[in-house]
């Protein structure tokens, strides 16, 4: 059965049709063609599909599209505002925090969620917050450094 969903994605009010069993991740990627959000596992173990759902960090693969009726979804594609990169995006670029880049959308969304509730996290807090985001290329070092640098930027008003 197809269901009509009204929702807000990256600030834009959208309506779409979704099969009842379809996940938010599949709806984003296959229906709305918003492929910035990646699938690494489909079972909530890698964090590549991290999105914000009504301000809460979730894996889009573990949310049904039907559940976002009336809700607000933020993805990596809405991170840059009016062409201006978010401090996290800038720091990831400057800090070489990505190699292959496929985990990057998930890391950015998750890190943004962290900085919103904790603008001055310790290295350990960043590592544990991001433990659900797997990266196989970087060994995490440059990701953690870039998040800490971006946090300083945000605190300093650079963002």
């Amino acid at each position, binding site marked *: 059965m197809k269901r009509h969903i009204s929702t807000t994605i990256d600030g834009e009010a959208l309506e779409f049709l979704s099969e009842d069993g379809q996940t938010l991740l599949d709806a984003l990627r296959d229906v709305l063609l918003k492929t*910035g959000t*990646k699938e690494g596992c489909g079972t909530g173990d890698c964090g590549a599909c991290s999105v914000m759902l009504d301000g809460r960090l979730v894996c889009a693969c573990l949310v049904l599209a039907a559940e976002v009726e009336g809700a607000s979804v933020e993805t*990596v594609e809405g991170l840059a505002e009016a062409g201006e990169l978010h401090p996290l995006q800038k720091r990831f670029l400057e800090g*070489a925090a990505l190699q292959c880049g496929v985990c990057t959308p998930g890391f950015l969304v998750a890190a943004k969620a962290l900085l919103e509730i904790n603008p001055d996290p310790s290295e350990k807090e960043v590592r544990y917050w991001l433990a659900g985001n797997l990266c196989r290329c*970087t060994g995490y*070092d*440059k990701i953690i450094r870039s998040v800490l640098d971006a946090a300083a930027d945000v605190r300093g008003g650079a963002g």
Partner: protein
Amino acid sequence: MSDEKKFRWVGTRPIRPDGIDKVTGRAQYGADFALPDMLWGRVLRSPHAHARILSIETGAAAALEGVHAVMTGQDLPDLFAEKAAASGGHDDSNNLAHNVMARDKALYHGHAVAAVAATSREIAERALELIDVEYEVLPHVLDIPTALAADAPLVHPDRVAQGIENPEPSNIAKRLEMGHGDPEEGFAEADEIIEREFSTRPVHQGYIEPHACLAQTTPDGRVTLWSSSQGHFMVRDYTAKLLDIDLSLVRVIPAEIGGGFGGKTTVYLEPIAVSLSRKSGRSVKMVMSREEVFRASGPTLGTRIKLKVGVTREGVLTAGEATLHYEGGAFGGSSVGAGCMTIFAPYAFPHVRSTGYDVMVNKPKGAAYRAPGAPMAAFALETVMDELAQRLEIDPVDFRLRNAAKEGTLASFGPRYRRIGCVETLEAVRDHPHYSAPLGPNQGRGVALGFWFNAGLQSSAGVNLNPDGTVTVLSGNPDIGGSRASLAIMAAEEFGIEYEHVDVMVADTHAVGYTDVTGGSRVTFATGMAIIEAARDVMGQLCKRAAAVWDVDAERVSWHEGEARLDGGVEPAPLSLAALAKNAGKTGGPISARAALTARGVGMGFGAHICDVEVDPETGKVDVIRYTAVQDAGRAIHPSYVEGQMQGGAVQGIGWALNEEYVFDGEGRVENPGFLDYRIPVASDVPMIDTVIVEVPNPAHPYGVRGVGEVPIVPPIPAVVNAVHAATGVRFCDLPLSPARVLARLDEAQSSGSA
């Protein structure tokens, strides 16, 4: 090349050209492409580790509404069977063809047996359930001792080993032997001899992006593939070969690649997607699930290494002897050759011999994994080196330095080394503050050295000069870890222009010349050489244009810092690249160049790592608390991405050492095909990974580049294991060092009073 040369861009850390796309979600990876007529392809996989396929009934699946094509192995041409039979079963193309889809037998849990294409993923999944396969389950072999047993079931009953005189059919695909001198003589000269046996388990590269492709075919036989791989020419060549299509009819468009580490140097889905597309007349998209990645793509498999090393009282190595068995999976083809070649490579051994066996088992066909074969060999050798140093009461780094390979040393794999940085790397470890930092209770420190050859191979590149003075570079290598940046740096350095004025495009198989895979740590080295050659060609053309403008002999014009100068002087006013580019149309037409080469003079690489661990004596849990990676990069073109390779390799190796392993049940099925129970390190598992880049330039490369991507996974396993020994007094010869195994060994040691 003089070391004093000042670079403008080489050694700096500019932002990668593809960066913005990758932080905004715009970059398109394998699964991100779609076409309006697209179907979804799914694969039915064997539930058995070893079974004869008696029949496959596909009628019900084909009849399901929304299903447009169903295929089995019968739909694929069997082009290489004859050659394989004639060669005793050894034909790589035949192996690849039969791995892509099983024909008469399913050889591992996850082996593809049929596929469907339907209008949605869900319908395709349902169709798979309607395919009825009748199997005759056969006894399976899962590990080396079982596979070598006298009465072992044979994975391929008709296959005989290469490298063995008058072989009977067995599960040994190949035997090889190498070395120099006479180990017996060397052991006779030794004061200390240590002999140990080591084992490792299958591990997966664990790239985050599952394999994915989209195939479009036309009735006149043309094929277009969008595919994520380590080499789109590899995808083109393999797909065309397996389906018997002219290469000129197959165009492969490289997607961004979400990690590979060697695991994406072969094809799994593409020939199936093309077949389904041809059958259905629609384009077909295929994406593996994570479970399929673990079950059906190539990991690197288990190994057993028996090693004997002799040394004099003064700490000089006299002899080494190793027997290496590597599982190659269902078709053989393990990395045991590289294991044999690398195991003794970092040191000067007067007498050395290694014998390798490539063993077939009912597991997925193994694939390359970062310095294939070397980490397991280094685990064995570097653990024994640590024990020898302990026995001789010599500092482990000093002991290694006494024996370290240098220019002119006869390498254990044959030739004499050219200029290498093994000694310099070890000295940097010895001098690093980490090496002498204090440790707390239950903590220990380990060091280990690692070697990898690196590769040259074939590369093509194009350099197009644009009328505004910017430069577009075409590369044939997918950018897996920032290579667009290093290639752009070298082009900007050559031309003497702004880095931002160079853009690098990974061009498809129709747009750039043949290029080997992004693998073997070769892109910055080899494709970089092609780009440098093409850039120098363009600069030569620019000098000629300037000579024409000035009406002088071309020999009098040369290129300096972004401009053509007459006799190197300032009069007449030099012509900048931008000025020459702007007027190219008036001076002879557009300017571009291509270069295609087999890269020579690859610089072999050494890395040495320092690892501190803390071991919980009550639970056996090992925490890595400090880590430093040191490596000779020759020349770091973009140091951030060199460090990134070192850090990423270190953490992959830590995972391999501590927790990663495939678990098989009694039926040969993979029990942990997901990231929950196949435990790659998460961010909170590891500390910052400090790096030291040593630069002993490779004389054969214009900038001194050595490959850097693979070396970093070689030292971590023994570095961790040696650190655990230092913390607990217990030596580990079997991976991984998961808490339960560590605790069991600590108990054993305690009850025997040896720790």
